[in-house]
């Protein structure tokens, strides 16, 4: 029996190991800049990305939004490029470029024909150290990020609700502050805030180069040494030190009313451990738990609350785990019209408790592991997706090895691991329960 089980496990894992080994190369330049190359020679395209280990959770207090504001301003002038010239050159080469900011990282990327990689690196290396901003840039682009906040958040009651939930979840950590920033702090961001963040974080020894597509590791190494290798390491780059969460000992509730809400729902988040280098087993169990509980039509919450009791229109459970510091495990229930949020919440709690009592359905577990294995095959069709996976992980404290072993760790999760993870994380004292509601009724 044991022998058969071992063989099955090996076969299951085989394709995962194969692609990881054959497609991905990792090395470090002399100045400390890490490089990841993900090869795919099917089309003459490359994606060139630089990821900085600096995101909104690295901002000094009082300057929320500055990481994202700086991201916008990197498209302005440098010593050698006019304002806007960066994107103009990318475009003239048939390429597309953009950037994004999160709690733990800021990343810049271009997708271009493979033979334009040299030019992309030249320009990206330039703006790592040489931006030249004007007061007018600050004033105008600050209006743009405020309109971005309007578009993403102020115009969207679900986003406003999400901000309040997050702020309540984190008692002492910057993950409680929105990535785009609080509006009142964004309005005050100035040149000094921006340049201080740039100087503190933008350096080769705080960055990861991720190139994917039709390129060899040797080509990337040669170009990277030429363009990035000549930038001196910044000896003042500090280890990322963030205020830590204290033990969370109190159940919290957030009631948010907005007349623009048409569908009321209950959202619950629990403080949860993240993936850590060499220590990802708990996170792997939580990832499988999220799939089992709320990953789709066959999941436990959907089965109980949508099909059997018919209380919910929608249920879901979410956990990613790729995060530098403590993250959350989230569940949501959208009740049917006519069902009160209190009743939906009670049903949700009852079903979560029932799940822990019932234990894991073996067939459901097998289906999820089959899906995990297949997703590694499908992932090879989207090499940029694999590149993103590395960038995100490596700016969240993980190593290349951690990324490569992750699918195997998911396969190794047992039914007992899942229940243990559920017991450890689904604690009321570590949770925030939110009600998104229509406008409060005005009594006549």
């Amino acid at each position: 029996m044991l022998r058969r089980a071992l063989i099955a496990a090996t076969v299951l894992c085989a394709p995962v190991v194969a692609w990881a080994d054959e497609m991905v190369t990792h090395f470090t330049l002399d100045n400390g800049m890490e490089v990841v190359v993900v090869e795919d020679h099917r089309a003459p395209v490359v994606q060139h990305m630089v990821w900085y280990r600096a995101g909104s959770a690295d901002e000094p207090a009082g300057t929320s939004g500055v990481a994202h504001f700086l991201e916008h301003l990197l498209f302005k002038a440098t010593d050698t490029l006019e304002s806007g010239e960066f994107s103009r050159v990318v475009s003239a080469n048939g390429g597309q470029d953009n950037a994004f900011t999160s709690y733990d990282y800021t990343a810049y990327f271009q997708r271009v024909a493979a033979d334009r990689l040299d030019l992309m690196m030249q320009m990206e290396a330039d703006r790592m150290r040489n931006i030249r901003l004007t007061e007018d840039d600050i004033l105008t682009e600050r209006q743009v990020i405020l309109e971005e906040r309007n578009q993403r958040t102020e115009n969207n009651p679900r986003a406003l609700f999400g901000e309040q939930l997050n702020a309540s979840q984190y008692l002492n950590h910057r993950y409680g502050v929105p990535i785009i920033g609080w509006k009142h702090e964004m309005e005050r961001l100035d040149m000094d805030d921006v340049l201080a963040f740039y100087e503190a974080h933008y350096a080769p020894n705080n960055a990861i180069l991720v190139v994917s597509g039709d390129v060899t590791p040797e080509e990337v190494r040669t170009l990277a040494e030429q363009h990035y290798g000549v930038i001196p390491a910044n000896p003042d780059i500090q280890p990322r030190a963030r205020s830590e969460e204290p033990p969370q000992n109190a159940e919290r509730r957030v009631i948010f009313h907005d007349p623009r809400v048409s569908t009321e729902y209950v959202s619950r988040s629990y403080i949860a451990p993240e993936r850590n280098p060499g220590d990802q087993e708990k996170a792997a169990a939580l990832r499988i738990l999220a799939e089992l509980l709320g990953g789709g039509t066959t999941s436990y919450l959907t089965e109980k609350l949508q099909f059997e009791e018919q209380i919910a229109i929608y249920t879901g459970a979410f956990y990613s785990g790729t995060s530098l510091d403590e993250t959350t495990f989230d569940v949501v229930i959208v009740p049917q019209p006519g069902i009160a949020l209190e009743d939906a919440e009670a049903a949700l709690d009852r079903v979560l408790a029932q799940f822990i009592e019932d234990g894991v359905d073996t067939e459901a577990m097998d289906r999820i592991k089959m899906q995990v294995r297949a997703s590694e095959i499908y992932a090879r069709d989207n090499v940029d997706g694999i590149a993103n996976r590395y960038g995100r992980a490596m700016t969240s404290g993980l190593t290349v090895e951690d990324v490569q072993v992750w699918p195997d760790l998911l396969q190794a999760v047992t039914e007992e691991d899942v229940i243990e993870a559920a017991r450890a994380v689904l604690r009321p004292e570590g949770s925030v329960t939110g009600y998104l509601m229509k406008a409060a009724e005005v009594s006549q």
Partner: protein
Amino acid sequence: MKHVVAFLVAAFVAFPAWAEVDIQEVTSPGGLKAWLVEEPSIPFVALEIQFQGGASLDVPGKRGSTILMTSLLEEGAGELDARAFARRGEELAASFGFDASDDNISVTARFLTETQDEAIELLRAALQEPRFDDDAIERVRRQLLTNIRSDETDPRALARRAFDAAAYGDHPYATSPDGTEDSVSALTRDDLVTAHHNAFARDRVVIGAAGNIDAETLGRVIDAVLGDLPESGAPMPTQAEVSITGGIEVVPFDTPQSVAIFGHAGVERDHPDFFAAYLLNQVLGAGGFESRLTQEVRVKRGLTYGVYSYLSPKDYAATYQGSVSSANDRIAEAVDVIRDEWSKIAENGVTEEELNAAKLYLTGAYPLRFDGNSNIAGILVGMQAQGLPIDYIATRNDKVNAVTLEEANAVAKWLYQPDNLRFVVVGTPEGLETTASN
């Protein structure tokens, strides 16, 4: 200086060799045609199937029936009820997406070579033997009604609804394919069976596949999935008349940022001047920082996070549209700037430099689309749906490059109609009032 040189060199160097996009035309034993790109390096297949007609085939009074029917395809088929169907898909690690829009129903399938036969059987059942069980109908109907209600307090959806109502007269395009609360509440199982019968037929299907499959196997697969469908369905929709007039229409809605959709009549995909129009739009307002609209509205004035324009050539009506969102006290200025740009390009056209930059971008970006089986399968279907020849990919950039400045600027004179430009603005905009009449 260095960078200027780099730019010039880049500008005049020819683009590199194409990805090998070797398209085979496959005719199945049962007589169905498909386009195939064989790519054996990853053991899976991306299969894209599109049925022309889509939600515009809704029977009058039954708005929403095609969308609801399509959403129910994965909610039970053949021997399997909704939950058993979902479990089966997970066991096979196959994924099927069913999506209805104005002009078509698209089926996006992805399956592993190792479970190909079983996945094909599941897909066949979904398309040909959907159960439309009563409990599934009620469950999915409630989800659709939730979406419809959400749209009633979503500024972007409200803008879309008002614009389409003004643009498309009494054509189905004028109303949301989701239907209304009343129309969806009244749909019966028979209505769904009718919608299914109307939509799925051999005379309106186009098929694209890319991945680890050869022509012979693909022929067998498409016969298995589609072979038993009837030869014909409902008559195709008729042409819409684009009836929109110029002016501003304010839709009052209490939210901090106004959302605007603007536009007027456009140009059909098969119009001889389509490429000239496409290049003009690249200069005016397509994505990217260099467009005139982004430069004027965002970069210089900071009035928005995003402003875009795009040609919208639907199968039965062509429009030219755009969108912008700005705080309520700044949207009036954004509207003014966009109107000015519309007038400027109509009067003066574009410069040689702008046209060349647009050509460089469009011809350089085109080969970058063909990266991955899923993308390629989608492109193969798009080409067939538009009636393009199988060798189109190799000739497309020549068509872009052939447009001269004189041609482009002649097209600009009739394409841009500042007097007919309608702005639908949802919000509480300061300094804007309704001037348009429907």
